Structure formats: structure tokens, C-alpha cells
């Protein structure tokens, strides 16, 4: 019964969003329409929540008369995986996608009370149009509410690789990031339709950009860590097309974050900011298309169905094509604003955007080129990690070099020589730290020391900004500390985000360059040594899990300091799907990790054991957490300002 109610709720949500979109786009100039659209947005949210709840209930109670549950859930699965199985498939994940979309729409309706009515109406209509399109897609090509009769006694298993806490965290975070950018997209379209855009527009868009960007950062980092511990060979980024699909909106979103800053503070870069807002969400949609169209195969992709692919492609073409046509016709109506000298904060942020845009192009072309080449000429080539490391790295290196200068430069006209002097301390420290690492690990001819230098430079440069603004060493310590804690949260957020980026770079370089690896065969009692850690193999025990059988290898690890820990690495076979997986064991020592994987048993009774020591590898994700945290810190400050009673006071009168 609840399944039919859920189905009905989803149909009703589709109808309401379609009506909201059409009436909103026709009557957006009327003041009264905004109120109806706000109610419509809330209704859409309630109905999609009801539909989603119906799905969750069917999965939790193992109602296999629901086709989706029968295909993707098993009564033996632990409760958490029954719930996450709802979005561990194409249809259910579409409902999650739409749920987050309507949450964003309701968010705009709730927080947008002080927006000009016409702008609010246009944004809500665009959100409704997106919701209508994707609800329609869900209902007509991938209906999650189909029934089976007779209902099977037992359901198939969720893909074992997905039976992990990661599935509970990674997709919701990532989708919130992806879909959050829809609000920026809707604001951009609203600006183009109304032909009016000013610093206040940027002020309203920035929190949504920050919010989406922070979630996307967390989502990507979580996905990376999940791949790292689940896929079993210790890689954390593969330049897989689907990873790239999430990385491109992140790069474009990072550019948008910075250009919206210029627009808010200086009323410049309007056309570019609108362009970026469109591009960022278009790249999110492209990711959705790539995952669901069947043009790729990966652990992320869902069952292939050419109709779905064609419909998604048509939606993609309509939204992206429509947005860019509108952009081409209307962009000239947006007037350029604030003047500035090339060497200024604005100039630095433009360079940031230039490099981020080029990096996005590098990833985009590398991802799509093999697909297009095959479609047009039939030739198949691979574009893999070596290509991306080279092109992406070559573009990011100069960006990292100029990054610390940005926050030091004044708006309008900066003093490059003065800034260089103030950054000399950070540069010296970075050089010292890099040389120290270099000396401690031995001479090499690789690029690793340069990479480390860049990481330290970015991290110390970010700290130097705080030190400089607090006037440390130029006034007494007490005053400096008072100044430091009196700094606006946005200053802290900038420094924290840039520091996080530096930390990630250091982690990436250290873990890639100084990783130690050992592949060997072991019998119980044998000892292997890796990076000073003595690993004793205690043997393999057979265990039965709730829905799998497992061979668990136990190891005693003696760290260089003498500390002894136990590690258990498993090889599992899932009962229902007969699919084998490996569960690596990871021991964390400070920022470094020892990664143990139990390989296939050999004929002579020995076990293949793969050991990696990954120095400072956790810094990669820790840096991402710092960046996302900085996003939320900035957001917590901005919300107070956004909620200020007289937002119009900050608006630029020359409209």
C-alpha cells in the first residue's frame, strides 16, 4: 500500500513542479506569484520525502514485491545496507538526486524571503523546471515503484563492493554538492532572463556556491578514501572517467567561488561569473549523464539502458544548450563594473580562474576524447593516469605558485614587491621544510622535492596571511593575538582552505614518492619487514559473516617504536552473488598508514600478502576536510550577514 502512496506522491510532485515551472516562467513579473512558488517548492519537498520514505520502508522490511528491492536487497543484509541499498542502484539514486534537488528548492523558498520577488520567482521556477525534468525522467524511464507478482521469496544481493558504510555517506554528500550547484545555475538563468545582475546577486549566490562546494569536497574526499580502502590496492585517485565527472564540477565550482567573490566585492567579472555558474552545473549534469547512459563501465555506473541514455542526453542538451543560447543572447545586457589594475586581488583571482578553467578543460578533454574518437573514427585509445598527471599537474603547478600572493594583494591596486617581501618568511620556511624532507629521505632526481616545496609554500603562505594580518612581530604579542582572534571569519576561512590545499598537496607528493611496497608469500609464523615495521603472519581463519563467508588473515605488526598491533585482512565471498571481495586492513601511525592486503592462496598453502607503507597519506583527506571545514566556517559567518534586516543597503544603485 505504502508503495502505491509513494508512487502517487512522486507523480504529484512531478505535476506540481511542472505547473510551478510553467506558471513561474510566464508570470515571474507579478509580485504575487512568488508566494505560490514558495508553497509549491515546499509541497514538492514533502511529496518527494514521502516517496523516498516509501522506498526506504520497502527496503527495510524486505518487501520483495517491489521489483527494485528484490533486485538490490537481501533479507540477510544488515539494516544499514538495506537502507543504503535504496540508492545503490539507478532508480533509487535518481530519487535521492531529485530529493536533494527539491530540498535545495525548498531551501531557496525558505531563505529567499529577502530576495527581490521577481528574482525569487525566476529562481524557484528554474528549480521546479529541473525537478520536473528529472522527476519525469525517473517516472517514465526508471520508475522505482514497479511491483513484481508473484513476489520472490528472497532478493538478490546489493553489489558487495557497495556493502560498506561508504555508500551511506559518499552519494548523499556528493549529490548534495552536485545538485547544490543547481541553485547557482538557476540564479544565473534568472539573471539572464531579468537582465539584471549586481553585487547583491553575487552575495546571494555565494553561500549556495560555498555550501555546494564544501559538500562536493567532502563527497569527493570520502569517495577517494572509500576506493582507497575498499578496492584493495591502495590507490586513492585513478582518473577514472566517473571520478573526473565529479572533479570537473569541483574545479569549475572552485573557480566560481573565487569569481563570485570579485563580483560581490568589486562588482566586476559579472559575465564570467554567470558563465561559470552555468558551466559548473552543466558539468554536474554531464557527470549524471556519464554515469547513467551506459557509455562508461565502472563500479559507479548502473545497468545500461539505451533509452535512458538518450533521454538524459536530450535533457542535458536542452538545459545546457538552452542556458548557453540564453547566455549568448543576453550576456551583452550585463554591464561590466569595477575597474582595477592588473596587479591586484582581482587580477590574482582572474589568474586563479584562468588556471582552474584550463585544468577543467584538461580533465574534460581527457575524459571525453577517447569516447568521441571512437564514435567518429572507430579508433580506440586509452587516456589514463599518466596523461592526466602530466597535463593537470603542469597547469596546477603555476596556480600553486601564485596562490599565496592572492590574499595578500589589495583590491584595485596591489603592491607585488611589498607582498613578496611579506611572503619571504613563508617562502624561506617552505624551502627549509622541503630541503629537510629531501635530506631525510635521500637524494633523488625526481620531481618530488619540488612538489613538496609547492605544498609547503601554499600551506605556509596561508598561515603567513594570518600572521601578517594579526601584525605578529610588528606589535606586541598580546595585541597580535587579540587581532588574530578578532579577524573576520572569512579571513580565517580563506587561510584555512588554502592551508588545507597545501596539506593535501604535501600528502599526495609524500604518499606517491616515498611509498614502500612489498609483495610476498607467507606462511603462518613468517615475518616480513616493511619501512621498519615487522609484520608477523599469524594464519588464516575461516569465518561466517551475515551474508558472506570470509577467510581472515591475522597479522601482528611491530612498529619501529616497539608498539604491537593486530591487523585482520579478509577475503570474502558473498553468498548470494558468489562475488569475491578483499577487505584490506589499514593501521594508522600518526599521519602515515600501513596497508595490508591478503592475496590469493597459493598451491603450496602459502598466502600472497601485499604490504604498503604510505607515509603521510592521510594528509590528502585531512587537507580536504580542512577545505570543506573552511567552507562551512565562511558559510556560518555569511549566514548572519545574509539574514541582516537591510540587505538592500549593500546593493549597488547603478542598475
Amino acid at each position, binding site marked *: 500500500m505504502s508503495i502505491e502512496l509513494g508512487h502517487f506522491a512522486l507523480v504529484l510532485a512531478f505535476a506540481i513542479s511542472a505547473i510551478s515551472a510553467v506558471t513561474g516562467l510566464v508570470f515571474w513579473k507579478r509580485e504575487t506569484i512568488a508566494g505560490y512558488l514558495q508553497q509549491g517548492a515546499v509541497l514538492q519537498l514533502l511529496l518527494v520525502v514521502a516517496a523516498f520514505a516509501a522506498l526506504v520502508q520497502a527496503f527495510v522490511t524486505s518487501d520483495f514485491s517491489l521489483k527494485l528491492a528484490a533486485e538490490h536487497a537481501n533479507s540477510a543484509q544488515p539494516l544499514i545496507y538495506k537502507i543504503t541499498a535504496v540508492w545503490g542502484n539507478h532508480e533509487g539514486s535518481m530519487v535521492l538526486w531529485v530529493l536533494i534537488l527539491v530540498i535545495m528548492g525548498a531551501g531557496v523558498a525558505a531563505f529567499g524571503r529577502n530576495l527581490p520577488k521577481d528574482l525569487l520567482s525566476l529562481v524557484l521556477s528554474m528549480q521546479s523546471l529541473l525537478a520536473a525534468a528529472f522527476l519525469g525522467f525517473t517516472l517514465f524511464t526508471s520508475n522505482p515503484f514497479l511491483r513484481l507478482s508473484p513476489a520472490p521469496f528472497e532478493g538478490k544481493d546489493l553489489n558487495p563492493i557497495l556493502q560498506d558504510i561508504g555508500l551511506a555517506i559518499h552519494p548523499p554528500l556528493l549529490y548534495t554538492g552536485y545538485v547544490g550547484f543547481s541553485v547557482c545555475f538557476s540564479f544565473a538563468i534568472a539573471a539572464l532572463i531579468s537582465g539584471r545582475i549586481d553585487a547583491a546577486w553575487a552575495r546571494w549566490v555565494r553561500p549556495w556556491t560555498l555550501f555546494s562546494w564544501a559538500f562536493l569536497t567532502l563527497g569527493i574526499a570520502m569517495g577517494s578514501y572509500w576506493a582507497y580502502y575498499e578496492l584493495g590496492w591502495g590507490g586513492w585517485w585513478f582518473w577514472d572517467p566517473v571520478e573526473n565527472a565529479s572533479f570537473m564540477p569541483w574545479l569549475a565550482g572552485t573557480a566560481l567561488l573565487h569569481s563570485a567573490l570579485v563580483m560581490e566585492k568589486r562588482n566586476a567579472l559579472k559575465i564570467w561569473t554567470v558563465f561559470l555558474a552555468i558551466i559548473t552545473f552543466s558539468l554536474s549534469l554531464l557527470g549524471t549523464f556519464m554515469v547513467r547512459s551506459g557509455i562508461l563501465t565502472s563500479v559507479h555506473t548502473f545497468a545500461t539502458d539505451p533509452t535512458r541514455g538518450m533521454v538524459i542526453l536530450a535533457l542535458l542538451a536542452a538545459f545546457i544548450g538552452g542556458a548557453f543560447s540564453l547566455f549568448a543572447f543576453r550576456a551583452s545586457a550585463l554591464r561590466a563594473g569595477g575597474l582595477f589594475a592588473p596587479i591586484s586581488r582581482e587580477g590574482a583571482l582572474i589568474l586563479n580562474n584562468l588556471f582552474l578553467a584550463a*585544468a577543467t*578543460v584538461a580533465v574534460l*578533454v581527457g575524459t571525453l576524447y577517447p569516447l568521441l574518437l571512437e564514435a567518429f573514427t572507430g579508433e580506440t585509445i586509452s587516456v589514463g593516469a599518466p596523461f592526466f598527471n602530466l597535463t593537470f599537474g603542469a*597547469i596546477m603547478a603555476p596556480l600553486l605558485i601564485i596562490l599565496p600572493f592572492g590574499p595578500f594583494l589589495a583590491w584595485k591596486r596591489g603592491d607585488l614587491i611589498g607582498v613578496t617581501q611579506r611572503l619571504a618568511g613563508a617562502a624561506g620556511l617552505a624551502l627549509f621544510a622541503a630541503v629537510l624532507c629531501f635530506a631525510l629521505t635521500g637524494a633523488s632526481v625526481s620531481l618530488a622535492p619540488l612538489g613538496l616545496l609547492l605544498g609547503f609554500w601554499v600551506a605556509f603562505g596561508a598561515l603567513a596571511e594570518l600572521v601578517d594580518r594579526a601584525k605578529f612581530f610588528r606589535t606586541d604579542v598580546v595585541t597580535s593575538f587579540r587581532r588574530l582572534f578578532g579577524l573576520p571569519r572569512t579571513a580565517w576561512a580563506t587561510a584555512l582552505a588554502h592551508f588545507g590545499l597545501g596539506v593535501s598537496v604535501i600528502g599526495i607528493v609524500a604518499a606517491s614518492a616515498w611509498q*614502500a611496497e612489498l609483495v*610476498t608469500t607467507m606462511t603462518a609464523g613468517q615475518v616480513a619487514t616493511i619501512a621498519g615495521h615487522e609484520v608477523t603472519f599469524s594464519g588464516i581463519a575461516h569465518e561466517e559473516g551475515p551474508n558472506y563467508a570470509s577467510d581472515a588473515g591475522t597479522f601482528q605488526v611491530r612498529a619501529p617504536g616497539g608498539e604491537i598491533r593486530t591487523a585482520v585482512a579478509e577475503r570474502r565471498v558473498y553468498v548470494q552473488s558468489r562475488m569475491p571481495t578483499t577487505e584490506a586492513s589499514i593501521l594508522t601511525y600518526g599521519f602515515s598508514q600501513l596497508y595490508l592486503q591478503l592475496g590469493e592462496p597459493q598451491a603450496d598453502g602459502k598466502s600472497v600478502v601485499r604490504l604498503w607503507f604510505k607515509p603521510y597519506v592521510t594528509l590528502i583527506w585531512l587537507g580536504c576536510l580542512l577545505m570543506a571545514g573552511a567552507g562551512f566556517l565562511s558559510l556560518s559567518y555569511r549566514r548572519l550577514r545574509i539574514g541582516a534586516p537591510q540587505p538592500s543597503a549593500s546593493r549597488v544603485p547603478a542598475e
Partner: protein
Amino acid sequence: MRALLAVLMLLVLSVPALAVRPDEMLADPALEARARTISEGLRCLVCQNQSIDDSDADLAHDLRVIVRERLTAGDSDDQVRAYLVARYGEYVLLNPVIAPHTLLLWIAAPVALVIGGIAVFIGARRKRAVVTDAELSDEERKALEELER
């Protein structure tokens, strides 16, 4: 990078085992290190975007063995790659060759950077011209009057 690692590990570790599966590894560490480097750039043809160095698949195992056989037979790194391309096509290379059909792929990002750079440069010059220009346009004068009102 891998070669460096191999050398480092030989210094650090007492067990010089570098093979992906212990039974595959070559006795000569220098040759084995070259095999690893080559393996990292070769695609496991039946996998999802994995190099043969990372993959557990049987085909990846076969390819790793072929790489080591060719190296033992005295082939250079490029000869090994050419041998595999002749058998499996360019699809086996994770790092695409630079050739007419991949030219667009390789130059896209640098061209985007250069075009963007030129656009920024022109924009900056135009802005500077406006800054140094004492005369205000009618539009700007109007905007200024509006501001002063």
C-alpha cells in the same frame, strides 16, 4: 619515480621482492623495476581503467608475464610497448601517443590556457586604457551623477 623507489627499497628492505605476484618477479631487480614502470602505463584490457600493475585479472597477469619475457629477451622499454601495441592496439597504452589523431587531446588544455591568457591580457590592457583615460563616457558620467544624487 618507480626506479627511484626500487633503489630506495633495496636500501631499506632486506627482502627485494617487487613483483605483483611473487612468482612473476624477475631475479634482476633493475629489469624488474623497468617491468613495473612499463606495467603501470599499460591498461588491463578487460578491467575498468586499471593498469596491469594494479589488476588481479588473469589477462593482466598474462600481460605482466609477456612484459617480463620481452625484457628478459633484451627488448628496450619502447620495444616492449611497441610489441604490445602491435598485438592489442593503442588501447593498451594508458598514456596516449602523440600522433595526428591525438593532437587535439594533447593541445586542448595548453591552447585553452593560451587563449584564456590572451583574453585576460587584452582585458587588462583595455581596463588600463580606461583607467588612464581622463575623459568619462556619457554613460559613465550619467552613472556618476546618479551616484552623487
